[in-house]
C-alpha cells in the first residue's frame, strides 16, 4: 500500500512537471500559433533569477515563486516587441528566430554565470510514507502545477484579458475588426507565457540544478507535449502531459530515465503522425 502511494506519487510527479514546463509554451502556441523554441531558455532564466535572488538573501519562497515570473515576463515582453512581433503568422520563421534566440541566451548565460551549476536549496525536506521516504518537494511541485493550471484557467475564464485573448485566438481578424488591439493582446499573451515559463524554472530550480544548457532538456519535452496536445492550451496540456508523463514513467521504471525520455519522444512522434492536429484538434474541440 505504501509502495503504491510512492509509485503513484512518481507518476503524478512526472505528469505534473510535464504540465508545468509546457503550460507557458501551450498558451503562446494556442493563442498565437507560434512555437517558441527559446521556451527552455525562458525557464533557465527563471531558474537563474531564483538562484541570484537566493544569493542575495531573498526569502526562498519569494525567490522561486515571485521573482522568476516577474523577471522572465519582463524579458518576454521585450523579446515580443523586438523579435516575435515582426514574425506573426509565419510559424517556420518564428521557430528559426526563437531557435537563434535560444542559442543566444545560452551563450549570454554562459558568459555571465560561467559553465558551472548554481544551486538553489530545497526548502522542504523528505516526508515518510509508511516505511518509504518520499520527497516533500515533489509534492510541492505537484501542488504548484495544479495551482498554476487552475490559475491559468481562471485568467482565461474570468478576466477581460482572458475573454479578449480567447476571441483573438479564435479569429484574429474578427477581433481586430471589433476594435480589439490584437497586437497588445499578443504582447500580453507572450509575456504571460514567459511568466509561466519563468515560474516553472523557479519551481524546478531546486531539483534540476541551474546551468546554462539545461533548457535543452526541457524544450524537447515541452514542445512535444504542446504539439501533441493541440490548439486548446489547457485541455491539450493536461491530456498530453498525462499521456506522455505516464509513458515516460512506465519506461523509466522498466529501464532508466533516459529511456523514459526516449519513450516519451517516440510516443509523441507516433501521436503527431496519427493526430497531426494534436489531441484537442481531434477531441475536446472548442475547449480551452
Amino acid at each position: 500500500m505504501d509502495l503504491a502511494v510512492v509509485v503513484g506519487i512518481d507518476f503524478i510527479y512526472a505528469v505534473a512537471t510535464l504540465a508545468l514546463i509546457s503550460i507557458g509554451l501551450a498558451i503562446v502556441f494556442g493563442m498565437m500559433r507560434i512555437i517558441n523554441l527559446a521556451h527552455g531558455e525562458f525557464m533557465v532564466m527563471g531558474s537563474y533569477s531564483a538562484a541570484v535572488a537566493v544569493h542575495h538573501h531573498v526569502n526562498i519562497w519569494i525567490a522561486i515563486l515571485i521573482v522568476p515570473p516577474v523577471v522572465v515576463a519582463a524579458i518576454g515582453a521585450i523579446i515580443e516587441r523586438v523579435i516575435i512581433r515582426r514574425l506573426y503568422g509565419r510559424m517556420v520563421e518564428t521557430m528559426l528566430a526563437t531557435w537563434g534566440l535560444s542559442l543566444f541566451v545560452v551563450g549570454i548565460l554562459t558568459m555571465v554565470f560561467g559553465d558551472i551549476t548554481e544551486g538553489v536549496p530545497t526548502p522542504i525536506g523528505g516526508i515518510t510514507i509508511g516505511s518509504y521516504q518520499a520527497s516533500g518537494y515533489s509534492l510541492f511541485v505537484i501542488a504548484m502545477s495544479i495551482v498554476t493550471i487552475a490559475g491559468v484557467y481562471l485568467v482565461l475564464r474570468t478576466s477581460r484579458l482572458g475573454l479578449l485573448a480567447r476571441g483573438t485566438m479564435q479569429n484574429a481578424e474578427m477581433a481586430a475588426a471589433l476594435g480589439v488591439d490584437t497586437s497588445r493582446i499578443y504582447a500580453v499573451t507572450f509575456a504571460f507565457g514567459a511568466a509561466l515559463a519563468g515560474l516553472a524554472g523557479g519551481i524546478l530550480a531546486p531539483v534540476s540544478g541551474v546551468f546554462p544548457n539545461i533548457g535543452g532538456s526541457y524544450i524537447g519535452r515541452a514542445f512535444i507535449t504542446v504539439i501533441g496536445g493541440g490548439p486548446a492550451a489547457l485541455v491539450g496540456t493536461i491530456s498530453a502531459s498525462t499521456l506522455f508523463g505516464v509513458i515516460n514513467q512506465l519506461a523509466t521504471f522498466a529501464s532508466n530515465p533516459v529511456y523514459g525520455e526516449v519513450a516519451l519522444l517516440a510516443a509523441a512522434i507516433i501521436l503527431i503522425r496519427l493526430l497531426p492536429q494534436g489531441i484537442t484538434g481531434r477531441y475536446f474541440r472548442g475547449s480551452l
Partner: protein
Amino acid sequence: MTRFLRENAALVAVAIAGIALLIGLPLVLDLYTLLQVTLYVIYAILALSLAFIWGYGGILCFGHSVFFGLGAYGYAVSVINMGDSTLPFLIAIALPAVLAAALGYFMFYARISDVYVGVITLTVTLIFYNVVNSTAGPQYHIGEALLGGFNGMPNVPSLNIPFQPDNTLEPAGMFVLCMALLLIVYFGLHILLRTRFGRVLVAVRENEQRVEFLGYDSRLHKLIAFSIGGAIAGLAGCLFTAWGNFVSPTAFSVVQSAQIIIWLMVGGAGTLLGPVIGAVAISWLTVQIGTQQTVNANVVLGGILLVFVLLVPKGVAPMVTERLVPWFVSLRRPAASPRNVAGESKA
C-alpha cells in the same frame, strides 16, 4: 562547346576554382591550416545535403544532425570492428540513407505538414542524442567498439586506400579526398536538379497538390530527395570522424542541427554555392571566436540566425524562391543573362 560555356559560365567558374583549390591548397598551406580547411570542406558537404532537401525539396528538416551523427558513428563503429575502412565508408552513407527513407515514408506518406516535419525530425535527433549520450560504460559496445556515451569514441582509424588497411590517408590526402568529394556532390546535385526528377522536386516545393494533379507521386519524390540528403549528410559524418579520429554525441546535438540551418540562412537556402560559402564562413568564424575568451560562440551563432531570419522581411521561404528562380530560369534560357551569373556567384 562555346554555347555550353556561355550557358554554364558560373558552373565552369566554380569547377575551375574548385580544382585550383584542390591542387593548390596542399602546396601553399601549412599542416595546421590544411587540417582546419579540410574540416570546413566536410562541413560544406554537410551544408549541401541540407541545401538540397530544404532549399530545393522544401523539406524543413530541423534535425539534420541525426544523419550526420549516424554517419559519424556508423563509420566509427564499423571501422573499429573491421580495420579496413572501405566498407565502413559505404556503411556510413547507407545507414543514414535508410533512416531517412524510413522517416520519409513515415512522414511524407502520412502527408504531415511542413512544420510538423520540422518537429518530428528535431525530436528524432533528441532521441538519438539521448540514447548515444547514455551509453557510457563497458557494457555498451557494438562488437569491439565501445560507444563511450558522452565521452565519445576516441582513436577511430583514419580512412585508408580501399582494401589496403595499412595505407592510411595523410592529412594532404584527406584534404584532396574531401575536396574532390565536395566537388562531386556539388556537381552531382547540379546535374540531378536538371533531370526530370530534380525539376519535379522543385515543383513539389512550389505546389505539391498541382504536382499530384499532373500525375507525379510527390511523396516518392520527397522520400527519394530526403534519402539522398541523408546519404550526403552521412558521408560528411564519416569524413568528420575519420578526419578527427574522434566522434562524440555532439554530432547528434540540436546545436549541430542549428548550425547547418545557419549555414543555409547565411548563404541563401535556394542555391548550392551559397550554403557552401555559408558553411566555410561560419565555421571559420566559430574557430576565430574559440581563440578568444570574451564572446561565447553560441551568442554569435544565435545572433546570426536571429538577424538573418529578421532581416529577410518577406521570410525565409520567398527568399528561397527569389534566389533560386533566376538561376533556374537561366537553365532554360539560351544564354544566361549577366544578372543570373552575378546572382549565382554572389549567392
